[in-house]
């Protein structure tokens, strides 16, 4: 089973929920955590895994053999992302714009294009107290997160319950991370920002046809509008975590709720049971 943990708005406690859920479940079941927030992966801070494998994620970008090229300009015309420019006696490739679609290589009439890998980041795999841990990490200065997310998700082990930590927002990296999940938990906070972004996140999971439910974090800070929204949209609220300086302090030190306040493990197990119930 794959459960993705998303939020719309950043900093609502998505990683807190994902890591504590993974830890609580790991006592009795086989679990894995996949951190797909590849721009800012943080789950490792809490679960402190030992990494045993690292793989560079690259996309194929064109390499022009100018001995064969006739400067016909076809490749530049084909490329939907303006990653190639052809001049009278020169072909320029802009690798950071290339999506690695392969069209230019396939369609060059002179077979003058081959492909070479361009690294965008890494996927690392390891172990944290029996939890199989995978994270993707985008390199500094790189733009394209989705290929790394795609690769990290290929590490899903069907024998385990997989918890996926999703990046914030509603655009392509989020879709890539949530796609294929059996269930999506949306973590929010009861403020106008939290609500605004929750509504957007619900739009994403509904478009992807994935069942979802809500976790409210820092309950007590803002207003009641998130609860009213959930009620009107019939989205169940499965867990409420209060605003509590002890929790904030644990978080600041990189300690999971499940470890720092073990009484919470019960709540996370209960959360998992409720998800299973909703899927039945």
């Amino acid at each position, binding site marked *: 089973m794959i459960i993705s943990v998303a939020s719309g708005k950043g900093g609502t406690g998505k990683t807190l929920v994902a890591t504590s859920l993974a830890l609580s479940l790991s006592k009795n079941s086989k679990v894995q955590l996949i951190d797909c927030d590849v*721009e800012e992966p943080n789950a490792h801070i809490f679960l402190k895994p030992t990494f045993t494998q690292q793989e560079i994620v690259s996309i194929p970008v064109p390499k022009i053999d100018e001995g064969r090229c006739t400067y016909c300009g076809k490749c530049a015309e084909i490329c*939907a992302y303006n990653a190639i420019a052809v001049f009278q006696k020169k072909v320029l490739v802009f690798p950071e714009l290339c999506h690695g679609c392969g069209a230019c290589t396939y369609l060059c009439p002179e077979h003058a294009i081959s492909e070479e890998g361009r690294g965008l980041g890494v996927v690392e795999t390891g172990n944290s107290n029996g939890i199989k841990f995978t994270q993707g990490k985008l390199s500094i200065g790189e733009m394209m997160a989705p290929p790394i997310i795609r690769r990290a998700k290929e590490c899903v082990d069907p024998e385990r319950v997989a918890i996926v930590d999703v990046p914030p927002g509603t655009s392509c990296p*989020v879709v890539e991370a949530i796609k294929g999940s059996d269930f999506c938990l949306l973590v929010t906070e009861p403020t106008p920002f939290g609500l605004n972004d929750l509504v957007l996140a619900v739009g994403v999971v509904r478009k992807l046809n994935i069942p979802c439910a809500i976790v409210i974090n820092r309950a007590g800070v803002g207003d009641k509008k998130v609860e009213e929204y959930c009620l009107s949209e019939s989205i169940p609220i499965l867990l409420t975590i209060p605003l509590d300086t002890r929790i904030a302090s644990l978080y600041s030190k990189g300690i999971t709720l499940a470890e720092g306040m073990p009484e919470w493990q019960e709540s996370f197990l209960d959360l998992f049971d409720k998800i299973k119930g909703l899927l039945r």
Partner: protein
Amino acid sequence: MKEIVVLSGKGGTGKTSIVGSLAVVAQSKVLADCDVDAADLHLLLSPTVRDKNEFWSGQTAFIDAERCTQCGLCEEVCHFGAIKDYTVDEVSCEGCGFCARICPTEAITMKDNMAGYWFISETRYGTLVHARLGITQENSGKLVAVVRQNAKFITEREGLEYIIIDGPPGIGCPVISSLSGADMALLITEPTLSGMHDLDRIIGVCQHFGILALVCINKYNLNEENTHQIETYCHNQGVKVVSRIPFDNVVTEALVRGLPVVEYSDGKVSQEIKKLWRVVEGKSPPLQ
């Protein structure tokens, strides 16, 4: 004219709340919300939309079932796994057009995407340029560029001094699009291990693109030991810490009322944000 981008790496550090308050404090500026896929600044500034524009960007493939002979070539060449059983998964399609070019029966056409909207609005603190990326759409980087271009155009036309940009979280495509060519990045962080880890990455991005970075530690008293570490770290990186803002629930109280905190209260948080702006303007020295 100076373009100042407010970024954080990690989400939820208080970036938008601070931008909302800078909108009140700063004179002679245009505001731009470049967090186009989860824009929030409008919740503090209650804008009146003056100009609403469609954002067309990218394409999606469509297969005409009548012409399709089910040869399967398109599925074979697609690098994004977007074609299955002779239909295109719109969400996975990246719009490269490879399939449309090679389909032997020309059964595939590429259609333009209406990928969102962008707006020019009036607020009680001046003009706001903002946008809404369509749900699950790509090309947030391009929409960010459109927002910035328009903010710049208005700033120049009206002879204003600053563009203040509320940037997106992360370090990828929309962040780079918000940052490239700007005059300064103001990085809002918090004293948590996650915040510190992400600060390190966003400082890396600023250095990579040669943009001057200033750091503001928000909610600094949540963990003063970590705050101290951030200051040491910034010092070693040659990055200036310009402000420390205490944690106070008054920020959320103001937010619930739809107000920037400086407009709602005159407490410590508001004082610090006012000071922060003086430092950014170069009228007061930074903390270190």
